């Protein structure tokens, strides 16, 4: 390789071609441009005319220069120019290649593999022997020198491990280094660890040591946990040089069990900062589903944090006094508790004795005065249980905790309760005072409408104030707590339902329970708790941070997991024992990442291959561009560029220059879709289902146009332009009416589409099914369309049907009609059946019917064809024959108007039954 300043040439001998340039110059100068042959009758007049001067027959100097430059660039381009070339100097003797092979290597593992391969290839060329050692996988015994080509064949088996080199292994390698002189290439992961310095010193004693480090910093995730209602996770980095931004993603299962990203937070490291924190404000039910955190874009095991039981749903036992008043759900003492807790925790029901067996994290006692299992509960609390009690009429009526402190109450109580703001008491209901800073509820917003009208009072005393974590505006305690062993007991001095206060109705209630339940969460079991247990790896991480199944891994003693030393014996992953789960992560508690420090005589390179810039393509491209300009210039000089060709050449040149900028931005389809939805939501839109048959869809649209115009002209309903929808993709919620022509080869909607359609029908939408076969058969399964309709409608939530009865509201919602013809007449039309117990209304020709709009109307009269008009308002299809046909079309329009009126106004007309009764009442 020839190096000239910052540019090197891979094939420098090609540059000798530049010597030919002067010759080319002379040749090009001597040879004038080739003449054009033209047939021209006027040549007879030209005979004998001589040229005035002979100087212009030579190629102009600037064109020559252009050509020379283009040719020179061509030669230079093929000579392989390289910016900042990397020069390998060949050494001699054996070459030892070390790679850390840890998780921190995984991110640029491919680049490291290439670097090793390049080093081995060079060693092969130089005829050196080599050895390759991964420090996470140090082979027993002394490394043996083998042919570099041979070592290279082992390269594909080299994979990064999800752990780091152990000190013991490094020190063992120091003692095992082969005798004699050898060079070392150390591909470091950039992290400092014990034993590294010793090994580096030992290697430097044997020969030259070159270290390769990625210029990118190493990032890893530290401890994850909860704090002030947020999921928090630490992010560590090794070097801490300069500011850096990263994104941390939270992944977990969605409600259907598919893993997806639940949230994402950006973190910024300031210059010199090696540790920062990301916070995720996630709803509790989402938080419960978190399975892992990861740093976006970092495919290493260290950038992944698995979560375990610490993020699991808590078990909460709900114990009440029993169901005294059956049926009054809203008055039940535990109703609001259940509503507040059930989304985020696993609820357990039963007596105290029953639930204690299940070892819940929290036990809630709602208005339960006397508890028989006091000792068992106390023991459970001392192990870390959280007991939450609510007051209520029973507790107020009992004498529990009046004379002395009850073991299951945080404070002594005063006999009787207090009632304020009621019919029999003075004063207004009390509101809440702001939470003190020591309270776990500190920071929760207090809604102004939360008031307390009755409460149980605590016996005043010196221990009351520290026990109080929430109080009313008048200073009386609302929530008190007392620590018992590792656990605690919390008393709400109001009832858990809305009888004594409106606290249970507010969002504050949920927030308070959340704070309590989270603070009472399960912590990581310590060594003592783990003693004697055996844990089996269920899933393990590989070096790249991907979870794989654990196979043939021996069980691990619980003691070892308390402060695990990650290594081949305990790979990071998820461990399970007796239904409990424990996550073992790469980065242990309190770990700091430290950047590797090299002694002064070791040369540290980056991943140099990435910094070389090949210029060949650019130089060749520039050369081609010059040739193109030359071609156009030569044409212009030779008189071949006239008239339209000039503009064509100009266009070509312009295109070439502008082509890179001509990447037109895509039209925002989503925005247009949103506009259409907003328009549909703000107006009445007649929608039709697209069948995939272009002709049928065209008729449907024209039919909806025709009906829309009829409605506009005749009624106060003013629909905007109709819309074709696809139940698979479109949001149905904004439409009130759906016309569904049935074609034989219509695709069956997906289950998701059916669930949307069913929701649409249940929430007041209407579908008009039209089999369009009224001329062939009455409605039924007699035609292919009829059979297709049955297949299509089977998964739909359709009530029992009957042919339209004579007193159905469809017959009088706007016009009085008795037939429902479309293009065809006479086929029956089916609607939701009236309830069997409908009675004849008094003095009216119709029955008292249900208040519902029929969700479907089914028929085969091909209404859309009868309604269809083109842009100019002309009817698209003939109906019937002559005047009778026009009458039929008119009735068809009247049916359409009635139908839309029925959809929009429901049974308003049916309610006219009650008009006489209403008038009579008004008269009195």
């Amino acid at each position, binding site marked *: 390789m020839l190096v000239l300043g910052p540019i090197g040439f891979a094939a420098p001998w090609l540059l000798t071609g530049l010597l030919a340039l002067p010759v080319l110059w002379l040749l090009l100068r001597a040879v004038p441009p080739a003449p054009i042959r*033209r*047939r021209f*009758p006027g*040549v*007879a007049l*030209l005979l004998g005319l001589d040229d*005035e001067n002979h100087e212009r027959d030579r190629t102009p100097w600037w064109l020559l220069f252009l050509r020379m430059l283009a040719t020179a660039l061509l030669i230079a381009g093929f000579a392989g120019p390289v910016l900042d070339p990397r020069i390998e100097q060949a050494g001699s003797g054996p070459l030892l290649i070390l790679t850390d092979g840890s998780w921190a290597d995984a991110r640029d593992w491919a680049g490291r593999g290439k670097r090793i391969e390049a080093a081995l290839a060079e060693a092969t060329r130089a005829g050196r022997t080599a050895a390759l050692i991964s420090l996470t996988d140090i082979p027993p015994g002394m490394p043996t020198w083998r042919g570099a080509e041979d070592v290279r064949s082992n390269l594909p088996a080299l994979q990064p491990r999800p752990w780091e080199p152990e000190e013991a292994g490094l020190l063992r390698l120091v003692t095992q280094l082969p005798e004699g002189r050898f060079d070392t290439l150390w591909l470091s992961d950039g992290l400092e660890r014990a034993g590294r310095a010793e090994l580096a010193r030992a290697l430097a004693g044997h020969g030259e040591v070159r270290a390769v480090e990625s210029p990118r910093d190493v990032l890893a995730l530290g401890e994850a946990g909860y704090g002030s209602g947020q999921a928090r996770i630490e992010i560590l980095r090794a070097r801490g040089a300069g500011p850096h931004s990263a994104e941390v993603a939270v992944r977990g299962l969605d409600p259907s069990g598919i893993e997806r990203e639940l949230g994402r937070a950006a973190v910024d490291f300031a210059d010199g900062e090696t540790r920062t924190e990301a916070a995720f404000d996630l709803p509790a039910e989402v938080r419960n589903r978190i399975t892992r955190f990861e740093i976006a874009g970092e495919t290493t095991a260290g950038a992944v944090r698995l979560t375990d039981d610490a993020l699991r749903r808590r078990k909460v036992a709900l114990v009440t006094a029993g169901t005294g008043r059956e049926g009054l759900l809203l008055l039940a003492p535990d109703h609001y508790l259940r509503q507040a807790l059930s989304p985020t925790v696993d609820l357990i029901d039963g007596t105290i004795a029953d639930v204690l067996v299940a070892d819940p994290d929290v036990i809630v006692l709602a208005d339960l005065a006397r508890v028989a299992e006091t000792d068992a509960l106390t023991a459970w609390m001392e192990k870390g249980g959280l007991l939450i009690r609510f007051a209520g009429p029973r507790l107020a009526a009992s004498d529990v905790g009046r004379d002395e402190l009850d073991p299951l109450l945080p404070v002594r109580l005063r006999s009787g309760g207090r009632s304020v703001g009621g019919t029999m008491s003075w004063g207004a209901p009390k509101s809440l005072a702001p939470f003190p800073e020591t309270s776990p509820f500190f920071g929760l917003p207090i809604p102004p409408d939360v008031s307390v009208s009755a409460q149980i009072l605590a016996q005043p005393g010196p221990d009351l104030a520290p026990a109080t974590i929430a109080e009313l505006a008048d200073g009386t305690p609302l929530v008190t707590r007392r620590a018992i062993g590792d656990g605690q007991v919390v008393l709400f001095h109001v009832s858990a339902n809305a009888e004594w206060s409106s606290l249970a109705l507010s969002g504050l209630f949920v927030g308070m329970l959340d704070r309590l339940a989270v603070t009472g969460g399960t912590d990581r079991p310590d060594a003592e708790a783990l003693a004697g247990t055996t844990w089996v790896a269920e899933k393990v991480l590989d070096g790249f941070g991907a979870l794989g199944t654990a196979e043939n891994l021996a069980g691990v003693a619980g003691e070892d997991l308390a402060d695990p030393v990650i290594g081949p014996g305990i790979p990071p992953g998820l461990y399970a024992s007796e239904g409990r789960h424990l996550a073992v992560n790469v980065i242990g508690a309190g770990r700091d990442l430290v950047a590797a420090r090299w002694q002064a005589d070791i040369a540290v390179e980056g991943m140099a291959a990435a910094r070389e810039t090949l210029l060949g393509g650019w130089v060749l491209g520039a050369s081609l561009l010059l040739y193109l300009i030359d071609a156009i210039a030569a044409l212009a000089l030779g*008189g071949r560029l006239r008239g339209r060709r000039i503009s064509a050449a100009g266009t070509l040149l312009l295109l070439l220059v502008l082509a890179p900028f001509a990447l037109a931005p895509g039209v925002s389809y989503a925005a247009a879709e949103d506009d259409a939805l907003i328009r549909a939501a703000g107006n009445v839109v007649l929608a039709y289902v697209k069948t995939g048959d272009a002709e049928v869809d065209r008729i449907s649209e024209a039919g909806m146009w025709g009906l829309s115009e009829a409605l506009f002209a005749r009624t106060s309903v003013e629909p905007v332009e109709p819309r074709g929808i696809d139940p698979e993709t479109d949001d149905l919620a904004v439409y009130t009416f759906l016309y569904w022509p049935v074609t034989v080869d219509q695709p069956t909607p997906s289950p998701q589409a059916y669930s949307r359609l069913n929701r649409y029908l249940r929430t007041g939408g209407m579908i008009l099914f039209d089999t369009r076969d009224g001329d062939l058969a009455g409605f039924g399964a007699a035609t292919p369309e009829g059979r297709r309709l049955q297949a299509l409608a089977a998964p739909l939530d359709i009530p029992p049907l009957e042919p339209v009865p004579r007193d159905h509201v469809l017959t009088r919602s706007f016009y009085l009609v008795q037939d429902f013809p479309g293009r065809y007449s006479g086929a029956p039309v089916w609607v939701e059946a009236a309830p069997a117990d409908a009675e004849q209304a008094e003095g009216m020709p119709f029955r008292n019917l249900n208040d519902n709009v029929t969700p479907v109307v089914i028929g085969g009269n091909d209404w859309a064809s009868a309604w269809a008009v083109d842009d100019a308002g002309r009817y698209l299809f003939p109906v019937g024959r002559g005047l009778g046909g026009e009458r039929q079309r008119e009735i068809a329009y009247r049916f359409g108007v009635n139908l839309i009126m029925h959809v929009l106004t429901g049974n308003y007309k049916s309610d006219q039954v009650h008009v006489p009764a209403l008038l009579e009442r008004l008269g009195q």
Partner: protein
Amino acid sequence: MSEAGHLSARPAGLRRNAEALAAALPPLLAEARHMAATVQLGDHGRRLSGMGDEFWQYRAAYAGDEARAIDWRRSGRADVQFVREKEWQAAQSVHLWVDDAQSMEYSGDTGRQSKADRARLLALALGVLLIRAGERVGLTSAIAPPRSGEVQLLRLAHALTRAAGSADFGAPDARAILAGSRAVFLSDFMGAPDAVETALGRAADKGVKGVLVQVLDPTEESFPFDGRTIFESIAGTIRHETRKAGDLRARYQARLAERKDRLSSLARQTGWLFVTHHTDDPAQSALLWLYNAMRADR
């Protein structure tokens, strides 16, 4: 026709030629008729009494007039007999010469008619007009001597659509022109002017008057060429090489103007008219001018 008879001996050739003829003839003839239809026909009397249909004058009957020549209606209003004389309406013979040399096949732009096409069109359209006016129209060569009637149009069209000759430049052939008739020469007159001079002199000797129409392509006027060029005549017999065509432009145009002057003065001397027509100008105006010229010089 003799050519048709000759061709009928070779059926395949007849068929091919008939098709080629039919392909060119109707469009040319139709176009010529179409163009002729735009020209208003005036009356065409000889301003002399003689054989004809139109009334000329009454004159007193001489002795010797046949009795049936007397116009009794006019005579009844006077004491003497009158004879009704009619205007002498004699047909004029017009000879057309269209240059069929290779140089006429030139067109400076693919979208433009060649000079030959334009010349044929003008000639045939003039023929249509003249024949409709009762004149006898023919070519200067012996193939189609002047005749009247619609059939003559077909003959003319046939003769005009023959393949071009092989010569580079054509010269008018005035030998078959009838004395005292009219002639129209359509050519680019790029060849040697001596031949034109000779022909015109011969025609003037016979008392023939007429029109010289120089049909030129616009590029032959503007000479829009540049760069190193080899100019060749259409048949390839003449060539001229230049290193810089743009330099020749002014001198070429001067020579062309000189050529036009010479033709113009020649026409003046012999009592002919000279006009230059360009193929990018509408043919209609040229036809109108030609038709008026044929009327004016009678």
